[in-house]
């Protein structure tokens, strides 16, 4: 029984909410206002705003979450609920290159374990971890909708398809 119980993902660690929300430049505020103006209901703008905060701050940090909550007149828990649903939204700091390996059926059958092994071995980290130099983060995600060209992963927002271990080496080596 005991070996069947494996902690698969740590729960959110204690986060101390800052007193002050994040602040952004006038240009970013204008961009946010533009998105808010598109929707009759404020909270509908939650996803575009999350991407902006993530772009500006690297990930959704507590100050950023507080900013979103204030801006959308929601509670922080509402922001957290949406943020943790999407694998594109990061609630923890990630490296410069975020490698998201698809672990769903088609990729799995066509060799995802080999890809993951090669990536992790090359970078010396396990899925869910970030390299010490802060360049790479590897995470396992659900289907990215590219089953026809499986196996695949996504580095930041770029797809890399029909992967082989050799191709993985080439891709990682070519990154600036």
């Amino acid at each position, binding site marked *: 029984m005991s070996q*069947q*119980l*494996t*902690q*698969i*993902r740590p*729960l*959110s*660690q*204690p*986060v*101390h*909410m800052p007193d002050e929300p994040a602040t952004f430049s006038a240009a970013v505020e204008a961009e946010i206002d533009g998105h808010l103006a598109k929707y009759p209901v404020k909270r509908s703008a939650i996803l575009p705003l999350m991407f902006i905060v993530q772009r500006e701050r690297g990930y959704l940090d*507590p100050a950023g*979450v507080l900013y979103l909550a204030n801006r959308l007149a*929601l*509670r*922080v*828990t*509402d*922001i*957290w*609920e949406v943020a*943790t*649903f999407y694998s594109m939204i990061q609630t923890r700091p990630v490296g410069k290159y975020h490698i998201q390996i698809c672990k769903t059926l088609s990729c799995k059958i066509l060799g995802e374990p080999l890809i993951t092994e090669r990536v992790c071995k090359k970078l010396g980290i396990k899925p869910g971890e970030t390299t010490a130099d802060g360049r790479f983060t590897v995470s396992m995600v*659900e289907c990215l909708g590219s089953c026809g060209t499986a196996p695949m992963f996504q580095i930041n927002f770029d797809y890399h398809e029909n992967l082989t271990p050799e191709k993985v080496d080439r891709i990682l080596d070519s990154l600036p």
Partner: protein
Amino acid sequence: MTQDVIKVTINNKDIQVPKGARLIEVCRDSGFDIPSFCYYSDLALQASCRMCLVRIEKMPKLQTSCTITCTDGMVVTTQSEEIEKAQRAMVEFLLANHPLDCPVCDRGGECELQEMAFDWGGLEERFTEKKNYYAERYLSPMVANDPQRCILCKRCTRVCDEWMGEDAIEAGGRGANTVIGTYGGWLDCSQCGNCIEVCPTGTLLDATYRHQARPWELAQTVSTCTYCSDGCQMSLGARGGELMRVVARDRYVNGLNGEFLCIKGRFGHPFVNHEARIRTPMIRYKKGGKLIPATWDDAIRHVASKLDSIANKHGRNSIGIVGSPRLTNEALYLLKKFATDLIGTDNYAVTDSVNLTPFFANLGAPLATHRDIRYAKTIVLIGGEPEELQPLTGKQIRQAVRNGGARLIIFNSVPIRLREQASQFIHIRPGAEEAAVLALAGGATDSLVSRKMGIETAELEKVRGTINETEGDLIIMFDGSLSAAAQSALAQLSYLLRADNRRVLFHPLPLYNNSIGALDMGMTNGAIDVTQMLDAAGRGIRAVCVAGSFLPEQLRGREESLAKLDFLMVQELFETDTTSFADVVLPAASFAEIDGTFTNNDGFVQRVRQSIPPVNQSKADWMITDQLARELGVEFGFGMSASAVFNEIAMQVPGYAGLRYPLLKDESKPVQVKHDIAVQRDISNELETVRTAVEQMDESPEKHNDTPDVGHELFKIRTLTDKVAQFHLLAAGNPRPESLNVSPLYQITLSDDLRAEAVVAGD
């Protein structure tokens, strides 16, 4: 209102149902059992557990009956091999990640998943992969969480949102990794614990009762809450003379509050068995001396002789009798009888902060029940903060607006949290509530009242517009801080605002569980009120008998008064400011140890039932009065029976005529007191008084612009909540402990006293 009736056929049985009825409810009402986890009456639909599957003819697949609205001619099958197979598969699926740790789970024995597994579960599990595992943790001092037991029915998140309006608890992550929790892992909410109550598994647990008892060891007694005037029904779980926990009543017994309780009702009970309870009667033989334990006989004899000599020396009116609005109707009735018939004094009063006598004397319409509030179409709230002071009323208002489309108009000087629900929030100056009454009664020009309230006249026109558009119930709520004239005018508003297509109902918001009962028993119509009595201490008033204690607000600035009395007798649970001056202290029994009735702000007379024997040597308040009367030579003749006292109440108090304990037996069908409805009368004198007062009103007070913190009233440390260690943490701002895996009581020390209390509480 006539409703269209349609015909549905369920398992070959034709059933007439109103149009728009929900299939799952219709099946259950017709005696066909349908299992479900996520469906919860009056909450948003979820349809995630898929246990309520039925076969509907002409529909291609099995349907979730919780999401189906009945249509005419629908033919439904609720039981078949196909449905059972699907349901068994669902239970197997729900159990895939569920640990089989029922023997150590606090929910074991009263768990819906456990029952469902007995009915629909398979003998063996085919799921052999690794189970999801999460560590147990605390979400707050009140709520413990074991995420791996969760079946993601999301009742907790819906209750938190729709009942409480707090959105404190949500589902994070997705798919099989979804976890119920909160951002940052620490709940910053009003700690009502309703998420614990509605949880069908052991995922959310009462942290104050954790690993203390098993449900089958507890003797369950249905009783009424002893905190606010909403009078929620609850179930006291006791073991061996100790009150272990409080839960709400079953949700299928749709009584007053369903499964709703607030933090005080659910977690405020440890005072009952607290070690600081007064243990024996005590006598202070000499002023300035110590209180010395005595026997009941000695103490009562001492009180009787003192009262006798003071009455002989200074006259009967030199004795004051004071009751608490927390006492039962029986105790208050007997106190009144004791004061008027036996002592013969006009000086009796209750320690309530407000007196609603003028309101009830002019009452032009019945009191609204909480069910009326839920289905009201317009609600006018003048002053008050129901969410903090009458949480069930707050919840009903929110549901009326969110689920019923009601329109809420708030007059308040503080931007209370309920304004998020309001269609119109009128931000008035502090103390200008009377001007709002005047405006509704049309007793002055709009320009005058608007100026005094500090608002635009257009706001008042909008209020009138909303009220005139209303069809259905209009409910007027007010807290008790109005003057007598304003209360009288308000009570007659029902005649001014009545129309063919709507009822006008009232919902006063007094502060205590039996404020209304104290009024019905006549304790509020004594010659003087409590503060006047305190001011007259040592002059007109020489001796006072108090059941309960004076409120700190009443003693403020009058600290010397009690010392001036020749004699002070106090019936109390705990030592208070009042007992420190007492010549005799008698240990009173708490609500969990007595039989009786409370009358709530709906006018419902509800039973208080004995759950445990009286703690230490305490006695029910009415029995103390009875014994004292006997010592003074008058036999009331009630013996040991609270129901005999109630029978006399039913004979003497008009609104209670014909009531008996057996008629109050079914808490799902509460009985409303028949308060006299006053005829319409000319209220121009009262309006004149209010107008004069409003004209003289100061226009300088600033409006409060900050919304008060959640719990600013709920978490206040008073005599009773002081005895709950967790309340001290909440009152100190609910600090986050270092580790979420250990109870915060073991990690946070606010002061040395708190630490000692935490050890006593055991968790």
